[in-house]
């Protein structure tokens, strides 16, 4: 076991795209943790999807061995955190395992919404914050101003913050030195009863669940009986060790202050709740560690196999995904239009897209996803309160006493010239202006309270385009508020397609209905006959488009008896139709379900 004074546990926090994962790569390199031939960009982001999109989805932890300028060798435990607002929760649970946080701020962008939000999270968790100015080699870098911003806005001394370029490896050692000097070493009695905080877990088909822990007190060794304090389940620890960038290194023990993993032949990730405390079965701790807030899906959507016969495959895939992503939830549902599928809960739209993409890529499934929705709270006349996560279950308007929708507190930061554009956008999205703060002479932070429903679809894209990419957003849930809600139904050829129904704010119904009809018209192929596309509220049609009948789709010449080509063409057409969903007499390609979500054209 490493002496406590030689351990530093830290994470890196930043606004998205400020260079967090790149800095992590450089720290790894600087500590010789990875051979340069094994070095891939964003090495901690092991999912293909993470590398492709340049984002971190899962928190990862890794141990670095660093010989500091004082001649001592330190164990630096780095816990990487996701940057996107959807994964707020992953950030908070990573922070609880650390004593310090490296705050990366882009030298030209300066402080942004998530810089603020993550810094507050970190300081609330009592972490020492080590500011670092990144991308110093860009022509637009303005390190002095950005340092002043950090001091003014975040009240963190930044006078001598290292000025670095993670991309080009400039001044990386200065960051490591600062971590050693400024981040306090962990405390904890290694002889006390075991208390280890679970901050992540992952399923491995050979070892079962790998539980990532930060040991707060006591020591855990292989062979020891351990107990999960929230469930009371006991296991025998099989292996403990530390994480290095390319795999796991088993050790004899893991003591207070250390970050590592343990395996105990645990079969499913759901047996290991993130935030739970692991203790010894023989000598249990009296109290668990303070847990963190439970993860709460914010967005729900129906996920169906494009080919109804693949239901079982989808179920298996969801089960496996859930092993590695405790923040997702799902339960079976069925739709008249789409057959059997699942209602899945996600942290946000990005999370939803990622899960979908993983299901399609890693499990080779073709999916149809229905419009995402938030959870509405409806109080019926008889006093019963129902949480509606599926438009199909929305009660009859005649039975409703009170309908409420979730609201968030949104914080938006942008250069002042975009204030008008942002105010416009937020007002359109039913935002209620709270206040506006000048962060410095250039930039302002606006606070709005607005319905979550208005943010989940395409708010972030709209914000980015209206602020030429300078606007940033962070939000948190503040509770339910009464609202005027209606259920909008879509009819194809006169029949309601239940999978296309959704709930929205009454005043938005007309414009939304029109746009959805237009989108469906674009996305549904012409059929042999005219198809009316209608939107209705409670039986009253409020918008209509018509998909004209197909005029010509024929092979005029079938020559010389070569019908093989014709056969291939028709077979292909048939296969295409197989992948469409037929509602009554109308075939709808799966893309149409997603297309109706992307309605903001400006």
């Amino acid at each position, binding site marked *: 076991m490493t002496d406590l004074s030689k351990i530093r546990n830290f994470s890196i926090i930043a606004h998205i795209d400020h260079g967090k994962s790149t800095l992590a790569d450089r720290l790894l390199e600087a500590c010789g943790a990875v051979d340069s031939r094994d070095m891939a960009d964003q090495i901690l982001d092991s999912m293909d999807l993470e590398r492709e999109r340049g984002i971190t989805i899962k928190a990862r932890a890794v141990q670095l061995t660093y010989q500091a300028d004082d001649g001592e060798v330190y164990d630096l435990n780095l816990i990487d955190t996701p940057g996107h607002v959807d994964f707020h929760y992953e950030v908070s649970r990573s922070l609880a395992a650390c004593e310090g946080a490296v705050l990366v701020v882009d030298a030209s962008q300066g402080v942004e919404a998530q810089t603020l939000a993550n810094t507050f999270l970190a300081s609330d968790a009592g972490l020492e914050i080590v500011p670092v100015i990144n991308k110093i080699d860009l022509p637009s870098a303005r390190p002095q101003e950005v340092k002043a911003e950090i001091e003014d806005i975040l009240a963190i001394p930044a006078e001598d913050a290292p000025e670095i370029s993670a991309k080009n490896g400039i001044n990386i050692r200065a960051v490591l030195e600062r971590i050693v000097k400024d981040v306090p070493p962990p405390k904890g009695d290694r002889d006390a009863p075991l208390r280890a905080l679970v901050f992540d877990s992952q399923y491995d088909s050979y070892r079962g669940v790998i539980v990532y822990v930060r040991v707060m007190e006591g020591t855990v060794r292989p062979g020891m009986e351990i107990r999960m304090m929230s469930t009371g389940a006991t296991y025998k620890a099989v292996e403990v060790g530390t994480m290095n960038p390319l795999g796991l290194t088993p050790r004899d023990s893991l003591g207070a202050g250390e970050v590592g993993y343990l395996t105990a032949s645990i079969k499913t990730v759901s047996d290991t709740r993130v935030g739970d405390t692991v203790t010894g079965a023989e000598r249990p701790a009296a109290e668990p560690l303070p847990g963190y807030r439970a993860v709460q899906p914010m967005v729900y959507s129906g996920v169906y196999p494009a080919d109804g016969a693949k239901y079982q495959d989808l179920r298996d895939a969801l089960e496996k995904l859930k092993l590695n992503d405790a923040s997702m939830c799902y339960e079976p549902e069925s739709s008249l239009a789409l057959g059997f599928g699942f209602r899945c809960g996600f942290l946000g739209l990005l999370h939803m897209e990622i899960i979908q993409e993983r299901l399609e890529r890693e499990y080779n499934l073709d999916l149809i996803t229905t419009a995402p929705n938030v959870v509405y709270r409806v109080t019926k006349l008889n006093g019963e309160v129902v949480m509606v996560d599926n438009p199909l279950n929305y009660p009859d308007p005649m039975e409703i006493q009170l309908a409420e929708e979730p609201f968030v507190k949104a914080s938006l930061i942008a250069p002042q010239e975009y204030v008008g554009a942002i105010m416009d956008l937020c007002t359109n999205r039913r935002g209620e202006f709270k206040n506006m703060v000048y962060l410095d002479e250039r930039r302002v932070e606006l606070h709005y309270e607005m319905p979550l429903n208005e943010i989940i679809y395409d708010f972030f894209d709209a914000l980015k385009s209206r602020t030429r990419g300078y606007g940033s957003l962070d939000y948190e849930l503040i509770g339910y508020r009464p609202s005027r809600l209606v259920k909008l139904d879509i009819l194809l050829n006169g029949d309601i397609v239940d999978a296309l129904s959704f709930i929205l704010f009454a005043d938005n119904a007309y414009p939304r209905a029109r746009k959805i009809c237009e989108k469906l018209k674009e996305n549904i192929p012409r059929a042999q006959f005219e198809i009316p596309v209608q939107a209705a509220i409670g039986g009253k049609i409020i918008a209509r488009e018509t998909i004209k009948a197909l005029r*010509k*789709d*024929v*092979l005029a010449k079938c*020559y*010389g008896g070569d019908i*093989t080509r014709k056969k291939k063409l*028709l077979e292909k*057409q048939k296969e295409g*139709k197989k992948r469409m969903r037929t509602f009554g007499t109308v075939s709808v390609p799966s893309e149409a379900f997603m297309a109706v979500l992307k309605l903001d054209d400006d």
Partner: protein
Amino acid sequence: MPILGRRDKTPLGIYIHVPFCRSKCQYCDFYSLTTKDDRLIDRFVDAICAHIRETGPLAPGYRVDTVYFGGGTPSYFGADGMATILTAARRAFDVASDAEITFEANPDSISDKLLRRLRGEGFNRVSLGVQNDNDELLRRLGRPHNYAQVLTAVQRIRRAGYRNLSLDLMYGLPGQTLAAWQETLTHVLNLAPEHMSCYALKVEPGTPLYDYKDLCNIPNDDVQADMYLSAVDILKEHGYRQYEISNFARKGMVSKHNLKYWMGGEYLGFGPDASSDFAGKRFKVVRDLHAYIDGIKRHGPVLEEVQEIPIRERAGEYLMTRLRTTGGIEREEYEKQYLLPFDPLEEALFRCRDHALAAKSSEGRWRLTPEGFLVSNSIISDLLLIQDQSTPLARRR
């Protein structure tokens, strides 16, 4: 397959692919070469005759009732070669005395001499490529003739004693309007052919036209649909009955050969890129003249894509090909041959009928209307999907 009676022979069609043209048309993707040297022609004739001689003994129970020389441009290839090949076919197969024997011709390569020679050999039907009556348009399409040559050619064909003449026209041509098309059609009908084929221009990848298809003002689908429907009307007024999507004939003058393709008849193809459907198998000759000649000479393989077609697939072919014809499809015929239920298909056909895309005759035969033919790919692919998902009758019992 029909069951052979003691004396009845199964009808068979023979197709000869002649891969030579004077020039390549802008839209054409058929296999043909514009080189024509006498040595190559001789080697081709030798190869195809050898191929016919080898194949004949494999078809003892068959009587050939149609022979069709297509291409390419058989008239440009010349009467000698065609006569030699037809003679080989007569020797190797039992060719019926009243067989329909067709050759394709272009107006620029049709002489009195050629016509008389071939008439003497037993050819009795000519399919003449006209395509349009506008010389400028013909030139732009890369056709090797003008409309005056068409008029002369028709006179010569009649003079030589052919009583079965088919003219090919195309619509949906660059810059063509609905009015111009109607005029062309009326104009050409003055030549009083027994048979008409009207094909929509199809722009195929790899053809010269494909590269400038977006620049040459090809009429859109709506206009082409109108052109098609008006052609059906005009032809009907002039006494031509539609019997297939693109084919029309005076009474009794349908192309027996082409009907085989759509009615599940058997045929053997000779020459490069020729297709066959024979004895339960579909196969194709290699699409390369030299490979064909060498293959035949060395008794090596010349066939590609030889496929035994399972009955389930035949059931699909039945829908695909029969629904191209006005004869259409019928319950008993379908259920008996393929042991699949007709009900689910009929349900879809009733829906088509509601939109005037299909019609049911008093004898219970379902056919597509001209409007239905226009969207036949869409209808047939629907039916194929329904067929895929249907449970065989036998399994239900």
